[in-house]
């Protein structure tokens, strides 16, 4: 008999919504074996975070359990009183949240924050708690626990904060650790270190973990078992290695097919069409059927129960066993060629020795007082940070240049310098042969018709007060198009980004993230630019949406011979889309080369470290067979 430290049985959870309750989790079942890691995988809206909160008994905003049980070490969590529940949870389960930057209280020293629960819950004296805190910090790999304990959160890096949070989660000596996207906010090299840490904790403490993530690479790196959630239902559940190499459920197949992989050859990504079903509408049949091209008539009428397929996997699909080896779509053998020889196109953007420094603090911070002997001195001048340090870069017509680097490397600043959103402190930027900096406003407007930008965050890149039509018309108005022409062009632009013309009347809040991102692209395209800066343009999107946006960007490149500077921290994405990759660190470009060269033969130690840190998804068995 297996030893299940945590069992979730038939769990259904609903939240109040206008006109009734919306069910977010539907009869979810999973079990966590002692000493193993179970990954809960799904895109936004899948209910994975709700599942974690339900396990902790921390549902808020009116969320309630409609059916099912959460069994922790043989005890039913929801059969107990609130106080008993708190005690059961306190000693057995801890949670680590996604964002280490907001989870720690900025006003309290780190050591104090970890020691507090030790005194409160484990009845330690102050001295004992302090000793235990230092021991915990050491356990999570912090080199100087004394100093760390005395620091305030803002003095620590993201990785260190996440370690501190893990230490505080371990304070009550839990059996189960719930990790809600614990590495999503971190750089890839830090992510690798945290995953290593979790791996070693699992062994030394025989800790069981519930690992919630949307990142299949990370999941494949750390999880023994995976539970794939779609629209609040478990669609596939089983051994991690088996699911990732031989997915049985079409949704899992689709997710894996949407994932850009680090490889030399580039096949078109195969996103999942459509979107999540409306939780308020009743559903007959399989929840994934509307987006599934394997769907049969029975899929529309009868929902499939989750049934074992083979030894180590169960899936909720009528056709799971017959489709076991069928890929999401037959991958076309045609590859999308990369432009290897950049020399043939004419240069669109030429940046020479671009430098940008920032002065820290406000205008008044530059004035400082000191005593020179007995004479008071006033000095002016602020601390200077060099974000971009003498970078030269040429981007040719129709070329996609990837710019990778970790946070703080200066990649965003460089991208914005190229279109003068941030003015370089020194250096030159030429677009289409004309100097951009020091240009007059009308010249600049003329140049920036040819160079545009797509932003990261679909929620913040569109003015919520303007309809999509207004947003898209404004750049056209600036170049002097008449009203009718503008409206015709708006329809044309929407069509280019595969949106219906009726979207012109919508407001941003009426659209999904992927749709908003398409509008962002349409806006950038409105003045027929030659060059677009894509600043983390797909990073905030779910995998399946990301795939369709990447496809769109590649299509538009072909159609208009566009050049992109594709800024991202995601090496898989950049190696998929870029022809040439620049690796940036501390404000300088440390390595440039064709995508192939960078992936296969990285020269700089930093590039090697970055590549080694990327969590990879194993190759599909179906692909290996071919």
């Amino acid at each position, binding site marked *: 008999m297996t030893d299940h430290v945590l069992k979730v049985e038939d769990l259904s959870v609903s939240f109040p919504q206008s006109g009734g309750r919306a069910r977010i989790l539907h009869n979810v079942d999973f079990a966590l074996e002692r000493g193993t890691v179970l990954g809960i995988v799904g895109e936004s*809206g899948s209910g994975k975070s709700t599942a974690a909160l339900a396990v902790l008994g921390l549902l808020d905003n009116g969320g309630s359990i409609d059916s099912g049980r959460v069994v922790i070490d043989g005890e039913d969590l929801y059969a107990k009183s609130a106080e008993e529940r708190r005690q059961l949870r306190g000693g057995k389960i801890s949670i680590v949240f996604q964002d280490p930057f907001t989870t720690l209280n900025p006003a309290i020293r780190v050591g104090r924050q970890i020691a507090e629960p030790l005194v409160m819950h484990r009845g330690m004296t102050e001295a004992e708690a302090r000793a235990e805190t230092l021991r915990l910090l050491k356990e999570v790999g912090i080199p100087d626990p004394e100093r760390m304990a005395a620091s305030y959160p803002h003095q620590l890096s993201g990785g260190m904060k996440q370690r501190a949070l893990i230490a505080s989660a371990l304070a009550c000596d839990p059996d189960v650790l719930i990790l809600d996207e614990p590495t999503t906010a971190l750089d890839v090299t830090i992510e690798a270190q945290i995953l290593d840490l979790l791996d070693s904790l699992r062994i030394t403490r025989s800790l069981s973990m519930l690992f919630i993530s949307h990142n299949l690479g990370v999941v494949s790196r750390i999880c023994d078992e995976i539970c794939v959630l779609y629209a609040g239902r478990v669609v596939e559940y089983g051994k991690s290695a088996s699911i990732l190499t031989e997915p049985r459920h079409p949704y899992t197949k689709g997710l894996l097919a949407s994932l850009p992989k680090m490889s030399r050859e580039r096949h078109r990504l195969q996103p999942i069409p459509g979107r999540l079903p409306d939780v308020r509408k009743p559903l007959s049949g399989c929840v994934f059927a509307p987006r599934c091209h394997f769907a049969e008539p029975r899929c529309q009428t009868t929902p499939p129960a989750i049934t074992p397929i083979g030894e180590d996997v169960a899936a909720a699909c009528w056709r799971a066993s017959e489709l076991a080896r069928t890929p999401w779509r037959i991958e076309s053998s045609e590859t999308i060629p990369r432009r290897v020889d950049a020399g043939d196109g004419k240069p669109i953007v030429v940046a020479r020795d671009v430098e940008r420094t920032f002065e820290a603090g406000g205008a008044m911070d530059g004035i400082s007082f000191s005593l020179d002997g007995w004479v008071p001195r006033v000095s002016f001048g602020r601390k200077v940070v060099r974000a971009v340090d003498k970078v030269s870069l040429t981007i040719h017509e129709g070329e996609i240049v990837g710019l990778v680097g970790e946070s703080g490397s200066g990649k965003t600043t460089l991208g914005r310098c190229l279109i003068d959103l941030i003015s370089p402190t020194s250096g030159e930027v030429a677009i289409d042969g004309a100097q951009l900096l020091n240009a007059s406003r009308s010249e600049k407007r003329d140049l920036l018709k040819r160079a545009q930008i797509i932003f990261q965050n679909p929620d913040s890149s569109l003015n919520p007060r303007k309809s999509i039509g207004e947003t898209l018309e404004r750049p056209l108005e600036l170049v002097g198009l008449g009203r009718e022409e503008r409206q015709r062009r708006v329809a044309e632009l929407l069509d280019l980004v595969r949106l219906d013309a009726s979207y012109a009347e919508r407001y941003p*809040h009426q659209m999904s993230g992927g749709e908003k991102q398409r509008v962002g692209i349409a*806006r950038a395209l409105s003045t027929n630019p030659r060059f677009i800066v894509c600043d983390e343009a797909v990073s905030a999107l779910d995998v399946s949406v990301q795939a369709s946006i990447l496809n769109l960007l590649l299509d538009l490149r072909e159609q208009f011979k566009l050049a992109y500077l594709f800024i991202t921290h995601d090496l898989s994405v950049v190696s998929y889309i870029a022809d040439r990759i620049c690796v940036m660190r501390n404000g300088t470009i440390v390595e440039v080369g064709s995508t192939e060269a960078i992936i296969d033969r990285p020269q700089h130690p930093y590039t090697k470290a970055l590549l080694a840190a990327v969590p990879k998804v194993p190759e599909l068995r179906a692909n290996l067979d071919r």
Partner: protein
Amino acid sequence: MAEAAANSRPQHRRAPLPASLIWGGVLLTVILALAIAGPSLSPYDLDALQLDMRLMPPSAVHWLGTDEFGRDVLSRVLNGAQSSLLMGFGATAVSLLFGVPLGLVAGYYRGWADEAIMRAVDVMISLPPIILGLLILSVTSPSLWKTVLAVGFVYIPIITRLTRGITLEVASEEYIQAARARVEGGWYILFHEILPNAWPPIIVESALRVTFAMLLAAALSFLGLGVQPPASDWGLMIAEARPFINSAPWIACSAGAALCVTVIAINLVGDGLREALDPRLARRR
């Protein structure tokens, strides 16, 4: 659940107006109508002294009683509406007219403009409103319009600070960067991109300001630097009735109730406007 909501079909029909806006609007319309029609509706002459009828409690003859000079309270409350409302709305308009642009400039351009504006604001805010109002009014002869300007001036820093705070937040949004990427002028960015997103909290604050302005104007009138007796004004009436609050509570209560109802109506409208103006809130109803 945002995901689920985004999935739903967009509503092309306009969402119904919020209830607070309807009720507040109705109430405010009635008050405004009474203020305009006040002089012709009032049963007695505003300044008619009836020294034999001093401090009479409400009766069939004088519905709201009489004051210490035997003047009809109902007539005075009806007549007082005009000056009180004028001072409330007028002063708020003045503070918005100056405060909003200053806040936008400080919050968007930052740097020395920000320092200069905000330090000036700090100086103004460090003086108690009443002292500042007195200071301004004491150098000229009192009149209704000067009171409006003075009270409006006193509240500029509050509006400036609020606007600057919201502007800082909105200016960091990517659509502002997008506007700069197509080389929009400062005017367009401030008034077409930022301001529409900054309105909701400003409107709510303004509704609050109207009521404060009415009270501050009343206080200034009481101190002899605003509306001059024997003119009728709610604030002035409350101030004048203060010595009789025990023996003749109806005077202060009538003017107070009028002020109170007006304040509630304005706040309801402010709240309702915020909801109606924000497309994101509109969806949740």
